[in-house]
């Protein structure tokens, strides 16, 4: 299965269960990146890191290294125009 880190800006995905539920994962969950949440990848920082995603009009940055721990499926809602 692909991870959150492998999707492209503009794509909408559904988050799976993170490989490691640590402090960072907890904070992300508190901001809305829970298992089952629908997340849009918005952009990447200079040189590809960090990653900006949006969940329910909240924009959140996380490092690519963390994004790799989240399995993610393309959402049926597809791509945001």
């Amino acid at each position, binding site marked *: 299965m692909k991870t959150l880190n492998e999707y492209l800006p503009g794509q909408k995905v559904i988050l799976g269960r993170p490989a490691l*539920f640590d402090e960072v994962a907890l904070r992300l*969950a*508190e901001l809305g990146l829970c298992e089952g949440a629908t997340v849009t990848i918005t952009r990447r*920082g200079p040189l590809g*890191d960090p990653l900006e995603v949006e969940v*329910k009009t909240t*924009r959140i940055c996380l490092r690519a290294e963390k994004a790799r721990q989240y399995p993610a499926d393309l959402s049926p809602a597809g791509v945001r125009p």
Partner: protein
Amino acid sequence: MTSAPTVVLLGNPNAGKTTLFNALTGLRAKVGNYPGITMDVRAGDIVAGDQRVQVIDLPGTYSLAPHSDDEAVAVRVVLGRLAPHLVPHHIVLVLDATHLERHLYLAAQLERLQIPYTVALTMTDTLDAEGGRLDVAGLAQVLGRPVYRASGNNPDEVQAFRQRLLDDVRDEPLPAVDVTPLWYRALVEVAGAGDAVGSDRPGPDVDAAAVAKDAVDGLARRATEIADQVLTMPDERPRSERRTDAIDRVMLHPVAGPMVFVVLFGLLFQALFTWAAPLMDGIDLVVGGLGELLVGYIPDDMPLSKSLFLDGVVSGVGNVLVFVPQIAILFLALSLLEDSGLLARVAFLLDRVMSRVGLHGRAFVPFLSGFACAVPAIMATRAISSHKDRLTTIMVTPLISCSARLPVYTLIIATVFATAEPVLGINVGTWILFGAYGLSVGAALAIAFVFKRTLLKSPVPSLVLELPVYRRPRLGQAAKTAAEKSFAFLRDAGTIIFAITLVLWALFTFPRDDAAQAQLQADVAALDKTAEDAEEREQALRSAHAAHALDHSVAGRLGHALEPVLSPLGFDWKIGVGVIASFAAREVFVSTMGLVYGLGDGTDEESVSLKHAIQNDTYPNGEKVYTPLTGLSLIVFFVLAMQCMSTLAATRRETRSYRWPVFQFAYMTALAYVASLITFQVGRLLGFG
């Protein structure tokens, strides 16, 4: 602090707490000091008739399981565990109506911990404008708590909310919160700031991560459930979000973004470096002028009192006040950047670079400000939420070459390198300046790297960062922050700076040589007042006396006593005296050299006679005191040494301890000494000097 009932404002960062706080309390707010915490907590009063309520603006937090030190402060206050006199009587949960679902996560936590609270809804103006509909009564019903609209920028809502607070607040503090439920202990454990909360750790047989994950999922579901019941949003994307998308397409663009920030911070830097200068000169002028005016009231036959007043008291006041323009400008700019949402974008763009050193993107602002002055820069470390990262940043910020070092570099370059041949077509002075700045930045980053892995060992901060929607910042609020910071500095650091100025004055004044003083009086009296060069000759006599008095003073003797320690660096006793004097402020080195060389008071780095005096100074054996190698060694020393009492006072204020400033002084002095020693000795071995 007082016996008035305490209301605390709890909420996510950017929920509008500060705006609401300011609207509720007006200009009566003050920044409070609490034992055991190193951040400012703002407290203000609401007064109506003989009723008084104290309102506290807590640091923003996303959760009651704190992840950082400033979140821990908020949580400890809410749980009534920060300080006995800071137990809340009433908790106000500030919720941003335009991001209701996420903000309701805190409500779900409060609910599950059975903590009573009142909701203040902010940003309702934006919600209304964007066509969102929020059922306030419904929300109150689902939560089972009072809910009020209270946007900080709506005077009617604020007025009504203030009245509700006065009505609802009770005299007795809230009961102690039960922090024993396993789900909460698991959250606290995973969040990692458990010691601050003081709850028991989950036992070894509990999978804390799994329990915590289930707990968050449950709380988030509850938040969604509530939001779905009371909030309807139009289908189209809200205007504020679309505006944010548009701005971010530029600000976070891999090429355009950094360019815009370079311009923005260039402006800030310019303001700190250049635009603050006239204000600082103005303060010098006014304080000095008032001093001159007042000193007239001290009788002429009391020279010691005059000197104490002018060189001690007046210059002490001046030494404190000069920092105000830079502090005010920096905090004005920072709070505009922060409130608009721009500062969070800086962390996004700079994360790659700063995380290499092991610091958060937010450490960038203190580093940049450090080029102007370490004092406001150290105060700006507030934005760094991890205590150890903040300490690391405070420790290394004074290594960044501040503007007070420039006159020293300039003087040295202009005297010992004036005649050097250009290298690669570029002036040697330029190379040296370039090297000095390079050394300072390199040293700051290297020392930060070392501290982060040893003394202040802590994980590289995880970049989990919310990028808030852009909002138009309020100048009034920013001005208020700037004023508060300035006053806090005057109050907390001012006394120390003032006291050290007096000590330095005493070091440079005592013991006095009464015989020489009498001789000076006699010589001046004997001058032929009608001769056309009478004034110059009197000046010469006075300057020569000043040099003698300095030599005679404790500071002069210290300089001589330090000579054996300093000579391996290539410094003579006069430089030793200059180094001692520059503790008041680095640029004082220049005027002190003027005094030592008998050129009188008030010489600056452009002074031709000072340059000549330095160039022609020789040791008794005829060797020149200032060789290019000495100059280089002296510059290295000034780059690295902690020659600034005001920075130490700022460190003392921000760390609330004397240990850290003492450590800072010790390590920087040691570093400077060793580096200068190596420079001079290696240079000699290579045949320079």
